Every structure is written in C-alpha cells, then in structure tokens.
C-alpha cells in the first residue's frame, strides 16, 4: 500500500512538472541557430497593422491586426495626417519602389545566415538585405537609411536587434501609418520550437506617438529548398501614371485609425 502511494506521488509530481523550455540547436559559436528561410504569419499587416476589414484588392480581413492592444497611439496631429495619407495613395513609397524599412520588410519571407561577427538577413522583396552587427559596435552617426542600421546581441535564446538611423520616409503599411526620423525599433526573435520563431518589435517615435508600442507575429520555417527569385522594382512600375491624385483614395472609414 505504501509503495503504491509513493509511486502515485512520484507520478503526480512528474505530471505536474512544467514542460522544459525549448532548447534550440546551437551554432559553433554556442549561440542559438536560427538559420533558415522564415515566412511570417501576420494577418495582412502590409495592408494595415491594425484590425481591418477585407475587400477586393485589399486582402483578407484581419480581426486582430498585429499591434498589441489594437491601437496605434498617434498624437492628435499625426492621427489627422494618417487619415489624409489614405486619400493620397499615390504617395505610398512602396509604389515608388522604395525599400519597406523595418518592421515593414519583416511582413514577408526572409532568410537568416549566422556568422561569428554578424547575422545577415536577406529579404526577397526588393532584393533587400540587412547586416546585423553582433560585435558591440555602435550605430553610425550622420547616417539615415530606408532600412536603418541594425546592431544586435543575444539575451538568452532571444536575438535582440536595435534598429536606428531610420529615415522618415518609410511607412508601416498601406494605411497611412507613418513615422518620423526619430523612429527607433527593437526587435526580438525568440525560437520556440524547431519551426517557429516569435517575432516582436517595440516601436518608439516620440515625435509622432504618445508612447512606445509593440507588434508581434509568428515566423514559420518554410521549405529549406525555397529559392529566392530576383525581385527588383524599377522597370515594371507603371502604376503611378494611373494613380491620379484624387482618384487614389481608400474609403475614408476603411481603416479604423
């Protein structure tokens, strides 16, 4: 009787144990190995990072969006500018073949390559690439770029990437959500199983928002033999001819903010 009770207590203790946190494979430098081709699951963030209805040419409905709390804390003057921008889609910079910037470029498939001193992210869209310097070097001064400048370090199993030197021209999505050159993004990539990384970005821009805010979505590992195909954007962009000012509008209430 006593032996059976002891066995039952031990079994109960085993069942009650928390599942072990995921231990990713390690590179030869002993840091997590997150190399591979990753596809974001992001609810149509390229249309709007906020919840939005679907519609023809406007993508699928997204009930939740990717923004924590479902609200973008724009200052009042900036909220008004957002609405104005939705009435001028001809000004959308991606329609002019500019780079998407961060975090916008992260809504699409990308590849990660890790070396001892840096991590390279390759994006298929716009054949863009980012080098995340992992050697503790500082952001450069007097430099601004569409894709900013990325410096990273590991915190446990999380890759933390600090993105500064952003220009004021890239946008978060196609819903008029803009930022200033004070944009500062901190990304966190946390592998949670072999085929999933949780991506979170903290956005800070005191010129435009009343407080920092966060977005998050999952990245899923895609087929290892997926091949990037050349994806430039300068030759077949004829649409600006047809995006005549005034006609290039979205329904004003299409996006909630």
């Amino acid at each position, binding site marked *: 009787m006593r032996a059976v009770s002891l066995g039952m207590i031990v079994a109960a203790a085993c069942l009650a144990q928390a599942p072990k946190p995921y231990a990713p494979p390690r590179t030869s430098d002993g840091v997590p190995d997150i*190399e591979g081709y990753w596809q974001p699951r992001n609810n149509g963030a390229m249309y709007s990072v906020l919840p939005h209805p679907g519609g023809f040419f406007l993508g699928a409905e997204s009930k939740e969006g990717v923004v924590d709390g479902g609200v973008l804390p724009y200052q009042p003057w900036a909220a008004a500018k957002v609405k104005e921008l939705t009435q001028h889609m001809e000004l959308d910079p991606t329609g002019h*073949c500019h*780079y998407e910037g961060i975090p916008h470029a992260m809504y699409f498939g990308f590849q990660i390559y890790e070396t001892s001193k840096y991590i390279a992210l*390759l994006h298929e869209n716009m054949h863009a*690439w980012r080098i995340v310097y992992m050697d503790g070097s500082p952001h450069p001064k007097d430099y601004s*770029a569409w894709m900013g400048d990325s410096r990273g370090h590991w915190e446990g199993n999380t890759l933390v990437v600090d993105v500064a030197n952003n220009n004021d021209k890239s946008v978060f999505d196609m819903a008029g959500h803009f930022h200033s050159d004070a944009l500062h993004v901190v990304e966190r990539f946390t592998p949670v199983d072999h085929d999933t990384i949780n991506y979170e970005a903290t956005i800070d821009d005191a010129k435009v928002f009343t407080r920092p805010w966060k977005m998050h979505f999952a990245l899923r590992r895609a087929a290892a033999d997926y091949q990037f195909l050349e994806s430039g954007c300068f*030759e077949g962009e004829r649409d*600006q001819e047809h995006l005549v000012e005034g006609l290039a509008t979205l329904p004003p209430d299409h996006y909630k903010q």
Partner: protein
Amino acid sequence: MRLIITLVLSFSTAAQTPFTPPRTVDGKPDLQGVWETRNAASFDVSEVAEGREIPYLPQALEREQKGGRVDPIAHCGMPGIPRLTYMPFPFQIVQRPGVVVFLYEYLHNQRIVTTNPRPHLEGIDFWLGDSVGHWEGDTLVVDVTDLGDKTWLDAARHTHTDALHVVERYTRTGPNTIKYEATIEDPKTYARPWRIAMPLHRNNQPGFELREQECTEGDDGRAIHPQYRPAPQGDPLEFVRSYPAAKGGSK
C-alpha cells in the same frame, strides 16, 4: 622590378605560388569579408580583358551601334554579371555550408549562390541571371545563365544578347586578395569566348561597413520621386539642345 613581374604574372596562372587559404567549418576556402575592385573596368571592360579587346562578330558590332544609347543603370537598371562585380562599390561575401552569399552595396543587390549544383532555371531572364556554383579544388566556380539582353557590360555600351553565358572563378591568392576571372561567351555577339581577370582587394579599414545605396524610378524609367508627375512629352534631350553653348553662342 617585383611590381612589374607581379603584373605580368597576373594573367598567367601557372607561375603563381599557390596560397593556402584559411578554411570554413566545412573545409572550403574562406572567401568571406568585404571586397573591392580597383580598376577602370566599370568604364570599359576591355581594360581587364585578355588581349585588351573584345572579339565582336561584325554583325553584333553593327547591331550595337544601332542600338540604345542610354546606359540601363542610368534608370536604376541592375548592372548584370559580371559588371556588378566591378562596379566601384564594395561587396561582402558570406559563406555557409552549401551556399555563398554576395551582398553588394550597389543597388543593395544580393546573390545567393548554391554550391550544391542544381539545374538552371529555364525560359526566364533576370537582370542578374541565375547563378549556380560548385567548388573545383580551392576555386569557387559560378555558372550564370538567363541574363537576358538588357544590360551593358560597362559604361562604354558593350552589349550582349540573351545567349550570354558567364562563368566566374573566385580563388584566394593571399591574405587580402581574391583572383576573380570570368569567361564570357555569347555566340550571337562574340566570335569566341573571352576572359577578364582582376584582383579583388579586401577592405581592411577598421570599422568599414557597407551602407545603403538606393536608386529608384518607376514608370518604365521615368522618374516619379518625390512627387508624382506625368511622363515627359517630346524630345527628352530638348533641354540640352536649348543650352546657349549647344547653339554655339554664350550668354
């Protein structure tokens, strides 16, 4: 004297002392780092061609002279291969088992070159073509097809057809050099395949990093940035012809 001998030997592979390069984790020569070319090839590729001439077929030369006169890179066109290598901008090589990745500062271009050979894509053209790599001893060989016919090999309007086929070779020759060679063939343009060769120099400046280089136009090459404006009408060279100097006078 030593300098002259080095220059003479740069085209003759037999006489070079082989360099033993450091190796990556999978035993391949380590090509990684930031590299630059230092020559005039981007102006005229015959500068780096064996024999300093390009063996044109006469009909190809005629076709070229009757062809377009605007360098495709003037409208943000990608430079193609091998021109992308010798554009006066640095590039970075990243190497992992089974792949060599080229990150070019010019136009933010990228090339992901598998070193496990696969069939080429067929029936499609890309500005940078389709690159498939493999190792021959300590040389990375990159075979490039599907290059289309839109690029120039340099600013001197050396053109090609969509039969262009380029084979590049990258070989470490010293702590700070790679020997880069390319065999260029196009039976509709050249009488025979021809070769170019040049050293790639490692950029050793402390803290040197690639930066963003962007070029953007749209609308079939008409500039639309920063504000949308309609396509220009009429003769695009009109403003040049209207200059006082062009009319032979001065004001």
